[in-house]
């Protein structure tokens, strides 16, 4: 009985992880403009060569085309394998997702929604309220957003100027970790996204082309 109680305690303790502490700057300015901002500043079409690392060490590569507007939060996106056939195409406007084309292996029910959420996490400033601003114990400049669905998003800037985004679940588990590298011409040339899920995956996104929309 004691052993069972101990196992239950350990289970719950391990399931509920703690978010890193943010020491607030003084005076706190809880405005997004004071936060690290690796996100898009204007509507842009981006082409990425994406290396996909899946569980079991399996590697593949696709080309991703994304048109993203940070003002309206509208997204158009497409995925092509090396041979350039469009296997997946979707548009999200006014929070309505319209999947125009979805072929295997991109035709599962959750794929489109998860992909669009990943794109928003990479390119758009989080929605929701800024809960904390300041510095992590390790020295990174940090802003913490609380989203509507009890998730938490930390946007970080390291001492070396690199930006990172971490998405935590309500229990404090890191669900997504994004690292932005090599800023040139206003766009990050390399973006790495690590997804912690039942089937975890990592995307290495190398920028081929970025084309801001003409005003």
């Amino acid at each position, binding site marked *: 009985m004691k052993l069972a109680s101990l196992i239950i305690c350990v289970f719950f303790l391990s399931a509920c992880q703690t978010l890193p502490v943010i020491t607030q700057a003084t005076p706190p300015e809880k405005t997004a403009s004071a936060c690290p901002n690796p996100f898009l500043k204007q509507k842009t*079409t981006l*082409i990425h*060569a994406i*290396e*996909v690392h*899946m569980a079991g060490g*399996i*590697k*593949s*590569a696709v*080309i991703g*085309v994304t*048109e993203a507007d940070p003002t309206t939060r509208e997204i*158009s*996106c*497409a995925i*092509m*394998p*090396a*041979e*350039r*056939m*469009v*296997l997946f*195409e979707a548009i999200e406007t006014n929070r309505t997702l319209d999947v125009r*084309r979805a*072929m*295997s*292996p991109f035709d599962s029910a959750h794929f489109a929604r998860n992909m669009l959420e990943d794109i928003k996490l990479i390119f758009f400033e989080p929605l929701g309220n800024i809960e904390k601003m300041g510095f992590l114990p390790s020295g990174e400049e940090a802003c913490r957003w609380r989203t509507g669905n009890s998730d938490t998003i930390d946007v970080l800037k390291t001492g070396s100027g690199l930006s990172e985004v971490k998405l935590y679940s309500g229990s404090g588990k890191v669900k997504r970790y994004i690292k932005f590298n090599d800023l040139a011409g206003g766009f990050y040339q390399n973006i790495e996204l690590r997804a912690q899920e039942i089937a975890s995956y990592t995307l290495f996104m190398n920028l*081929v*082309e970025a*084309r801001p929309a003409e005003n």
Partner: protein
Amino acid sequence: MRWPKVSFLFIICGMFLSAFVPGAYAADADFEALRKNAAQIKTIQADFIQTKSMKILAKPLISEGRFYYAAPDSFRWEYLKPLKSIVINHKGLTKRYIYSGGKMVEDESGGAQAMKIILSEINSWMSGNFDQNPSFQATLKEATYTQITLTPAGQNMNGMLQKVIITVSKKDAAVKSVNIIESETSATIIDFKNTQTNKSIPESMFQDIE
């Protein structure tokens, strides 16, 4: 991760090989002549420029690469830029390689194996059997260039392609371009140049990726 059963690459290769026929073809200009003359091709090598147009792309995505074929069923389709990748098929074994960590590594996502499923269709195209493949309805039109239009007829192409138009030069019978129309908003044009036929290609080209 599984790739579609019908690979874009195989469609491209099939179109190219089946349409590349000697000069006699232009005069005869029928499908029987295509079948007859396709049998004369032992090797092909060519550079290609692939132009991908999509509604969300203000400017098309341009890719460049090189293509090699040796009868009866060996080929190498190599993209050089912007994203390096290679598919080779030799003695019944199909492999896809991607550029990762500064070197070419095998794509083990299942894509290459899935491609094997449609090899039977490719062999059909290689033999010039445009009008005998139940997956496509073929029409031939003579104008400044010879145009072969393939329209999907079977269920397995449904939703993937609207049509494929192959343009062949009347002068030298070389394939000039392959236009693959996927939908109203997406199309791919492959322009071939520096095409050479029946020139020796080392077997290693279909075995080694470097």
